[in-house]
């Protein structure tokens, strides 16, 4: 079973915090999709577990391009239960587009709202308003999408705790099946890095996070990963593949893949990509790499990692191998029978713990 990721690196306008690979220039859009479809056609796999069309803003480009991509993918073994997600941003999503996506077989849509307040959206450099989001969301529901995710961010410049609660209340009222809540990271090489930002302090950031967990839980959204929450049965199959180290193939500019314990990455140079030079990095993982990944990816999930599964995969006892780490962070890690997981405090400092595994 293999999951597929398709990268659409175009946006109407790049957000000020974004360090993902995307362009607002659509000059190469035709050549890009030609190259993307060539790449898809050249790849063989048996059964498809999930598909994710991400970006960039896939909903920004004409939906005919998405149709072509879906057509190219149709030669793979996909059934009606296969989770097929497309990412969308408000301001780019019409009713016709939403209906078209449904007609291509796309059954899940992930919409980036980020914040409920228009003044915050402006600060983030988003192109849309709250009103545009509501209208787009209604279109998605009208078009028949039953599985929807809304992306949110907290710890934003000038965001108060109350604004964050307002966001959560209004978003849960729309009853999406899935909510992602990311704490803003000011990345290198983004405009935010060089701006004077009034960011909430760590105390407020953590209060926003922990209170979101309990609020969302009370509304029926159970946390299953550091930043992800879902109604019963609606966790993202595709995301879980990343954390559980299932095979996945990435198509498109800068896309990453994991196949048979080999990590690959496509070129980030659009000219090279259009010319057909795709994979530029090939990293065959050692057993040690695999063990490290198993731990630091698996422990992102609230269900934790399994001692017996670790033993079956690698022939080593994790409680012996990582004894000193488990001991040092005993206030942050729970060992519950076969399961090892982070507690809520552990999630807060998860990098400090994870770096012990690499």
């Amino acid at each position, binding site marked *: 079973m293999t999951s597929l990721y398709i990268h659409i690196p175009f946006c109407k306008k790049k957000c000020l915090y974004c360090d993902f690979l995307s362009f607002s220039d659509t000059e190469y859009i035709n050549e890009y999709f030609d190259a993307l479809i060539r790449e898809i056609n050249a790849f063989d796999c048996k059964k498809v577990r999930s598909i994710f069309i991400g970006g960039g803003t896939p909903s920004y480009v004409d939906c005919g391009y998405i149709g072509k991509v879906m057509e190219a993918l149709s030669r793979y073994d996909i059934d009606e239960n296969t989770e097929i997600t497309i990412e969308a941003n408000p301001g780019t999503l019409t009713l016709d587009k939403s209906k078209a996506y449904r007609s291509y077989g796309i059954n899940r849509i992930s919409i980036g709202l980020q914040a409920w307040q228009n003044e915050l959206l402006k600060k983030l450099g988003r192109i849309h308003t709250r009103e545009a989001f509501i209208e787009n969301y209604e279109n998605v529901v009208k078009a028949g999408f039953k599985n929807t995710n809304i992306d949110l961010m907290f710890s934003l410049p000038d965001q108060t705790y109350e604004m964050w609660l307002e966001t959560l209340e209004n978003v849960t009222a729309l009853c999406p099946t899935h909510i992602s809540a990311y*704490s803003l990271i000011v990345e290198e090489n983004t405009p935010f890095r060089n701006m004077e930002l009034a960011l909430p302090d760590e105390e407020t950031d*953590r209060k926003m996070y922990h209170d979101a967990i309990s609020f969302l839980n009370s509304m029926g959204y159970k946390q299953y990963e550091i930043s992800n929450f879902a109604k019963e049965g609606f966790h993202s199959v595709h*995301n879980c593949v990343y954390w559980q180290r299932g095979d996945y193939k990435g198509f498109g500019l800068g896309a990453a893949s994991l196949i048979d314990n080999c990590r690959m990455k496509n070129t980030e140079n659009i000219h090279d990509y259009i010319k057909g030079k795709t994979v530029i*990095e090939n990293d065959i993982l050692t057993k040690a790499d695999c063990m490290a990944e198993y731990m630091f990816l698996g422990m992102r999930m609230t269900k934790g990692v399994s001692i017996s599964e670790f033993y079956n995969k690698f022939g080593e006892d994790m409680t012996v191998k990582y004894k000193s780490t488990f001991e040092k962070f005993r206030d942050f890690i729970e060992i519950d029978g076969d399961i090892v997981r982070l507690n809520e405090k552990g999630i807060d*400092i998860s*990098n400090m713990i994870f770096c012990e595994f690499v």
Partner: protein
Amino acid sequence: MSNRQSKIRNLSIIAHIDHGKSTLADRLIQQSGLLTEREMQEQVLDNMELERERGITIKAQAVRLIHKGKDGEEYTLNLIDTPGHVDFNYEVSRSLAACDGAVLVVDAAQGVEAQTLANVYLALDNNLEIVPVINKIDLPSAEPERVKAEIEDIIGLDCSEAPLISAKANIGIDNVFDKIISDIPAPEGDENAPLKALIFDSFYDSYKGVIVFMRLFDGSVKKGTKVKFMATNKVFEAVEVGVFGPGQFLPVDELKAGDVGYLTASIKNVRDTRIGDTVTNADDPVKEALPGYKKVNSMVYCGIFPADGSKYGDLRDALEKLQLNDAALRFEAETSVALGFGFRCGFLGLLHLEIIQERLEREYNLDLITTAPSVIYKVYLTDGTQIELSNPTDLPDVTTIAKIEEPIVRAEIILPSEYIGTIMELCQQRRGEYEGMEYLEETRAVLTYKLPLNEIIYDFFDVLKSRSRGYASFDYELIGYEPSRLVKLDILVNREIVDALSFIVHEDSAQEKGRKMAEKLKKEIPRHQFEIPIQAAIGNKIIARETISAVRKDVLAKCYGGDITRKRKLLEKQKEGKKRMRQIGSIEVPQAAFMSVLKLDEE
């Protein structure tokens, strides 16, 4: 004197730092015709990378030049290079002992400086003929006549015939050669007498073993000669003798009285050759060794520990090798609760300490943790015993101490008169005792202060330079010990004393230093998953406290669309940062924290 000896001159060049000693050496080497333009590196004698970067010469080295004099005869000039910094007076002195004369270089704009004087005194101690040379006469600010008068006034050297040169612009170099040949005496000594040679430097070569640099005063030596090192009584058979070509060793058949050259004898143990020792014939030794060198004492001590405990053996080997070329370096094993196994090392001064530290790191690829420097205190106990304390950790319980004495130096500071006020203030702050002031001329003066050595080993030189915009120069000599009200300041991290952070401080400044130290460590030590108190204490009394708050958030929210490699690299980088820290109990302390005490007056 034989005809052979009459064609030899053994000399050093001495100068204040930056007065152009190395540039003149380069010129002499270039004009002696031994080197082509292509071979001529910018500063041939300064061949260590570190020296080049710092623009100073650390280790004495030698080179042999062939020069055709005005009389048409070919002369052999052995040029022995000397370091130019206050810390290295000892090295200067041992090089000078191998010479018969010295060229004194004085900057035509800056005139006599503190180290000009210090070097002249050393040369006079060694009975050397001094040839003054005025350099940098091409500078717009050059005042050669004023500087000549200054040398005559302050030092008492006749400058009427002093060559006026610019080593950089290649002006007047021939005059320097002429003065060397006419003024510096040729060596004397009986080549048929028993061998009597002075070791002024040595060098460890992994193929040839120890290479001994020496000046022959009497006798001769060639391949097969059985030689004895008088201090260690070790006997070796010479394998090779030779002279110093530019940047290389040139083997010769024989070295004779008056020559400067080298000897190898498959000497494997670095301790068998002591710098300052006398080499003689094993079968027919001289009765008395040469007076040797001025005895050198370490002034500053600090602990040096390998960041990785398993590198202890490597650190010991590296120190032994450095010691071969640097008799002033002392070390003995030390154990710290916080830092494990390491060495207590003695140095001439803070610059010497820094240079050794950097050489260990660069040349021997060691990752080190260095503790704050300390001087040697004399501690008198109530039971009448006395101990010499070089490690603050070893200070006995206060109740058993009758008194503590600290080393005092006399410092001479030469400076333009406009900076007198600010520099006096600095000396006052450092517990200095004013001794006097003398005007060298209208705009320049010499300030003399008595200062506790422990007040100048950290950052005195840097502050002096910055407060005088680089114009003040400084030299000091140890004059004795005086009683003082000193206390040991302990630092507690997470409620435990970290022995490597303890330091000795005057009672009156303990409170302030304790507070600054706690503040500094709060900045240096990264936050952990729990809160960490930092306390400064004298005995059981806590005098300052800071708290490092716990990490509240260190989490990567987003997974970058399946690019796990990027995430792994971030975690690896984070882990790499931790590796460079020292684990003390459950606290990870960065190496720089152990030098915090040096930087208390920053900001």
